[in-house]
């Protein structure tokens, strides 16, 4: 018998919440340390009703969208150039490989110094977190394109523009979509961290602010919403990756 996967995951979540309820009921924890699910739910509803939650969600999503978008429109073209031009790659790649392992969080002091307080430093950090993985993934994908396709392009007198539009982009699309999916998850991780430092809004700020007020119920509301939006973003990217434009790749 094949169950609906949605059914199975609701079973596992129900069990998790049940476990949580049991632990908090018998565990004799203070509500300030480990609030029970009902309290968290009540706080969540309250935050939702007075609009606070929505405001923070929108703030976070806005930063992720802008930062991620910038990383995409700059990172993918750069990756294509690096993948195609041997000399440029030799020149630029070492720098990218050097900057890539530096956690975006390490940039926080500089980001705040350069951009002050507000959306900009957060967007900058998200951009950094997405930019390097996208450049590297695109470069590798371009590098892996079967040279036969470039021969075909030359044989049929493709212009430079046509090579990009009809060979490179379709060829790397499957890998780039996978990279986008991984990268948006990183961006989402980073936005929360960035908001704990550089701004006065967003889910990261909500959590930090609640911690300062010793409201662990609100902290947990923030965590749960972050998790849910993370899953949602992943589902959206997954849908994108099932795009018709890469249907040809099914065979491999």
């Amino acid at each position, binding site marked *: 018998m094949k169950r609906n996967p949605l059914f199975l995951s609701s079973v596992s979540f129900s069990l998790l919440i049940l476990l949580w309820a049991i632990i908090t009921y018998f565990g004799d924890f203070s509500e300030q340390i480990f609030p029970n699910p009902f309290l968290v739910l009540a706080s969540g509803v309250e935050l939702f009703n007075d609009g606070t939650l929505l405001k923070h969600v929108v703030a976070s999503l806005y930063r992720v969208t802008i930062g991620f978008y910038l990383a995409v429109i700059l990172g993918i073209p750069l990756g294509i150039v690096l993948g195609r031009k041997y000399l440029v790659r030799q020149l630029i790649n070492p720098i990218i490989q050097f900057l890539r392992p530096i956690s975006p969080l390490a940039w926080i002091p500089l980001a705040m110094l350069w951009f002050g307080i507000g959306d900009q430093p957060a967007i900058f950090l998200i951009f950094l977190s997405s930019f390097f993985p996208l450049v590297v993934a695109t470069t590798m994908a371009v590098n892996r394109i*079967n040279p*036969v*396709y470039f*021969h*075909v392009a*030359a*044989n*049929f*007198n493709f212009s430079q523009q046509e090579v990009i539009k*009809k*060979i490179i982009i*379709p*060829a790397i*699309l499957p890998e780039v979509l996978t990279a986008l999916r991984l990268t948006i998850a990183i961006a989402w991780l980073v936005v929360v961290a960035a908001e704990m430092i550089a701004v006065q809004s967003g889910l990261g700020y909500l959590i930090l602010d609640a911690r300062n007020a010793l409201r662990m119920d609100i902290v947990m509301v923030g965590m749960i919403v972050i998790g849910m939006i993370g899953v949602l973003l992943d589902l959206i990217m997954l849908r994108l990756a099932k795009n018709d*434009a*890469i*249907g*040809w*790749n*099914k*065979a*491999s």
Partner: protein
Amino acid sequence: MGHILIQDLAKRYQNRRQHSRKNDIHAHEKIITVLEDVNLEFQDGEMVCILGPSGCGKSSLLRIIAGFDRATSGKILIDGQPILKPSSDYIFVFQHNGLLPWMTVWQNVELGLRHLDNEAEKEETIQEYISMVELDGFESYYPHQLSGGMQRRAELARAIVVNPELLIMDEPFSGLDFLTHLKMREEVVNMHQFINKTIVIVTHDIDDALVMADRVVVMGNASTKNILLNRKLAFGHPRNIEKIEGLRELRDELYLMLGVNYAV
């Protein structure tokens, strides 16, 4: 048109990534000569079959003819003109996966006609060539949805739809099952009689050469002699090897030349 003159052609590869070990006697041989003193002339409209052991430089020669690669020295003239870059006048049919996998059969065949302004004429021509290779009904299929033989036929249609002066095919039948191989061979012969353009085919199958070729070229290694045989075959089509004495004799000769004692 489609006359090919190859003069004193040489091709050397510089092997950049040599993992040289001290006791490796080949470590110092960074330059390998693949083609040396190659002189050939193919007449306009000839079907030329090139045979030769693996690694003797057949694909290298074809790549140079197609303009994908440069010769180290010597020259190739097509209709008196040196080849400077690839062009849709000389279409290369690839050994594996030459179709663009993200394009349908129709879109692949359309590649060579994409600059045509007259949509109706373009569609009619594409359909005509798809029908010629018997792929009616598969226009919107992607390459991975086709069998190996169908993929080759689609690529053939894409190649001849541009009416090239020269068709260059590198082992076009490899990887096909026996019957598909024979049918494809027949189709190429028919197509050749129809378009009447020069075709240069590399094959590992001696029978291919005997059945198809107007000219057989046997290649050997550059270290000994690159061109072992260059002979015109004046037999009509279709040919039955068993029934033509000259072909049977040539077959024995070719086997011997390629190092197989099949005949004796």
